């Protein structure tokens, strides 16, 4: 039983993560007055893609094929480091939050070089944008987590999130709010949601993440979709870890609360996407610098 519980987060992630995308799409559809696609549409998409064959250009090398596989593997590894609800992480040690952040750095690196491997100038442009913006969102994420670590006094993700309790909110509420807002901006930027990137756009000049996956097809693209959903699941857990401080000690109570928190987060993202326009590319750095500033403020205050 305990061994299964240890791998609960990767398993739950694999099962539930695409559902979050469905919830976001349904929220946007409700706002737009449409019926919208089925809630399970992301699962159908991934299943369809996994059954297809892949076509590879003759100019690409093994790097191009390794990118999507590594992306999925790395996100699953990161899931092992993240506690969920009342379930502690499978692997926990001091300072594992840095490994957690840089596992996503590794994933980004492989996405970028597999996009560059195609030799397409359009994908090179997307890669350049992705790297530029992530260079600015990474300090915000790192400093934001450092601020929470300073509030709680622990530098391991499992201990950190299990000690975010209502009393801590009373003691250092302002710092937690600032860090939470900064992490929400990072969450939107890293998952290519609306103020930074439009996930629905297919206008080449405006998209960031989507453009790097243009040449991937079939199972490879399925892996990319799946790892993007998992990344959203994991980064969302940081936000939920702060905003839903429910630790009764009972796994069957804490985990549903955390899952409900994730679904609520998906609805919030849907509301943000329906009520905001995408920022101009020139203004994105300003938003991300603002997020970094909020993180620094949260760190300095406490």
């Amino acid at each position, binding site marked *: 039983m305990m061994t299964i519980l240890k791998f609960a987060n990767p398993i739950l992630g694999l099962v539930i993560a695409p559902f979050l995308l469905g919830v976001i799409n349904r929220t946007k559809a409700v706002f737009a007055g449409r019926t919208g696609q089925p809630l399970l549409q992301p699962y159908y998409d991934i299943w369809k893609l996994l059954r297809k064959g892949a076509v590879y250009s003759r100019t690409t090398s093994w790097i191009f094929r390794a990118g999507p596989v590594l992306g999925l593997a790395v996100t699953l590894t990161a899931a092992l480091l993240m506690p969920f609800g009342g379930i502690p992480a499978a692997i926990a040690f001091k300072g594992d939050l840095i490994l957690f952040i840089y596992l996503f750095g590794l994933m980004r690196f492989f996405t970028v070089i597999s996009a560059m491997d195609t030799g397409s100038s359009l994908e090179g442009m997307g890669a350049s944008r992705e790297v530029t913006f992530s260079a600015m969102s990474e300090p915000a994420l790192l400093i934001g987590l450092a601020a929470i670590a300073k509030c709680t006094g622990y530098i391991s993700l499992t201990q950190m999130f299990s000690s975010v309790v209502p009393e801590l909110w009373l003691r250092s509420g302002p710092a937690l709010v600032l860090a939470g807002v900064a992490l929400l901006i990072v969450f939107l930027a890293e998952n290519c949601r609306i103020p930074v990137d439009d996930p629905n756009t297919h206008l080449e000049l405006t998209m960031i993440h989507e453009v790097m996956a243009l040449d991937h097809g079939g199972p490879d693209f399925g892996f990319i979709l799946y790892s993007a959903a998992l990344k959203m699941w994991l980064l969302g857990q940081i936000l939920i870890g702060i905003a839903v401080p429910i630790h009764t000690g009972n796994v069957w109570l804490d985990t549903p609360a955390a899952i409900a928190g994730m679904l609520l987060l998906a609805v919030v993202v849907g509301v943000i996407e329906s009520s905001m326009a995408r920022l101009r590319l020139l203004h994105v*750095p300003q938003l991300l*610098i603002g997020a970094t500033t909020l993180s*620094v*403020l949260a760190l*300095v205050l406490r």
Partner: protein
Amino acid sequence: MNNAADIIMIFLVLTNLMLLGLSRLGACIRFVALQGVALGFLPLILNHWDMEVHLVIFSIVIISLKGIVFPWMLNRTLRELASQREVEPFIGYGISIIAGTITLVMCMWLSSRLPFPEPLMSPLIVPVAFFTIMSGLFLIISRKKALTQVLGYLVLENGIYAFGVALVGKQPMLVELGILLDIFVAVFVMGIAIFHINREFDHIDTDQLSRLRS
């Protein structure tokens, strides 16, 4: 730990950073007004909401001046300027915000080294008051328009006011009211001056004023 005072201080820091990053003059005026209203509640909060008559009058005067009269005068000036609604900085918005963050950290460090005779109501007041003064100065030197410099001057005064209220409590209300009167006159005069500069030269770009001497 006084939580209401802390929240006002954090609000002050956030509005300062917003002012450093905003490009619209109208929005800048609104944020300075918000800052003034928040500061108006500060003397009441620091004295634990005991409703002494002179404290209440002081708060009402502060809020009505900083929250209503100044924004109204500045907005009127802004209307006269018609099509010039951008801030036009010498230093870009992103770099301004980064500079503000660095200044904030420096102010925190500086105030942690200052000895105070008695413990203050909130440990944040002194660094945040310093930071407000510094960002007011930064707004004055890094922006071209005369109107933004008036805004920087108001932010600077907000910082001095926060510092004074935090340190000396309720004694020098008369002094504060005197300073407020001075600032009222100053903003009044500056508004008229900006209007005249604009009518004479068709812009309020102070950068070009320094080349007037021939």
